[in-house]
């Protein structure tokens, strides 16, 4: 009777299915226990900000040195340094400028982030560089390689001094860019928008 049933085919498939189900259930139900490792990574942030501590020129001093009775009358040009709302940009405007006068803006660079940074580089661009024999930080406190810990700050004097190559009644523009980067990767070039930094080894 049993032999006859097995030989029909359908019961064999049925029995095989039961066997497979049994094996699968065994596998799924096997005893196991989990241990969990929960990882949280709180990243810090790198941030630098600028501020302006003062600005001026030396027209009056030169006038005094030259014996002008009223040096104040020689104060014909002016400089103004203003800070953007995000504290990332200082705009310097010099009006009625002329050669051989030093215009200066005292700029504060501060680490407002949570990790140290180093100044990767400082670049000076624009046609102002062609007519100025000084367009630079003169106190030597802001320089490539400078490192600032969080909350540390330094002040340097950015001086602009025009040569006689400057033409009259012309607007010259210049731009100073300070790039800072995390201290542990200096002097690796900072990352670009197109991919990982070259330091990604």
């Amino acid at each position, binding site marked *: 009777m049993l032999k006859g049933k097995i030989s029909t085919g359908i019961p064999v498939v049925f029995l095989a299915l039961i066997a497979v189900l049994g094996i699968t259930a065994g596998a799924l139900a*096997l005893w196991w*226990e*989990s241990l969990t*490792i929960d990882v949280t*990574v709180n*990243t*810090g942030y790198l941030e630098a900000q600028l501020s302006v501590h003062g600005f001026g020129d030396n027209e009056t001093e030169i006038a005094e040195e030259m014996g002008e009775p009223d040096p104040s009358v020689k104060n014909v040009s002016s400089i103004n340094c203003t800070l953007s709302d995000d504290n990332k940009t200082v705009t310097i405007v010099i009006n009625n400028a002329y050669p051989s006068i030093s215009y200066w803006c005292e700029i504060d660079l501060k680490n407002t982030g949570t990790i140290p940074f180093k100044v990767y580089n400082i670049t000076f661009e624009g046609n102002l560089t062609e007519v100025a024999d000084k367009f630079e930080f003169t106190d030597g406190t802001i320089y490539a390689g400078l490192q600032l810990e969080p909350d540390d700050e330094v002040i340097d004097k950015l001086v602009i001094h025009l040569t006689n190559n400057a033409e009259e009644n012309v607007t010259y523009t210049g731009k100073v860019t300070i790039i800072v980067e995390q201290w*542990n990767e200096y002097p690796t070039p900072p990352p670009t928008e197109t991919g990982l930094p070259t330091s990604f080894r």
Partner: protein
Amino acid sequence: MNKKLGIIISIAVLAALLGGITALWYEELEVEAVVDTAELDWEFTDFFFFDSCYLVPGPDKNLFDFVELNPVTAPEGKDVGCTLVEEIDTDNDGDFDMLNVTLNNTYPYYYTAVNFWVHNNGEVPLKVWRLVIILDNGTQYVYTENEVADNPIITQLDLNNDGKPDVFLWFENAFGDQLEPCQTIDISMHITVLQPAPQNETLHFQLTLDAVTWNEYAEALSSE
């Protein structure tokens, strides 16, 4: 009269026979089965990790060489980030079943390592079966001996879904390691923050380490 006597005698004989049957000697034998199952149980017992937030400040470690897994002391010995690890008993059964690892104020290439001990506090031998990495977006990566053989698990995880890896993970392969009851082994895990990690954010992922009874390890592998 004789007929009545015969009936009475017959009834008496029948009653005697029936009494003999119901009073016959007998005895039952029984087999009682009691199955006292064991418990498969393991727990975290101890751990060691780099750059603790609580201990004496020390220089961070940075990892630039991902091939040799060769961390170096952070340039200039700076102490910026730090690591915290704590054990948690999530189900209040007396076992530490979770390790909370927190890296604070980290930055690209910040490196830390956690060495932890797992202990078979159950009653049957177990084998380390698989590691499941679970990201907050639901993505899961399952690793067993089938995937990595004898090699460590080395992967980079995108934890903020921007398509770029944020964390480098190196996890020691303990797959197939067997722990007898009361036996302990240690496993190490190395984490490095990568350059594309977002600033000033909290990144999170979870790992579960699963063990099975030693005799079903092969079956567990084949059931994947």
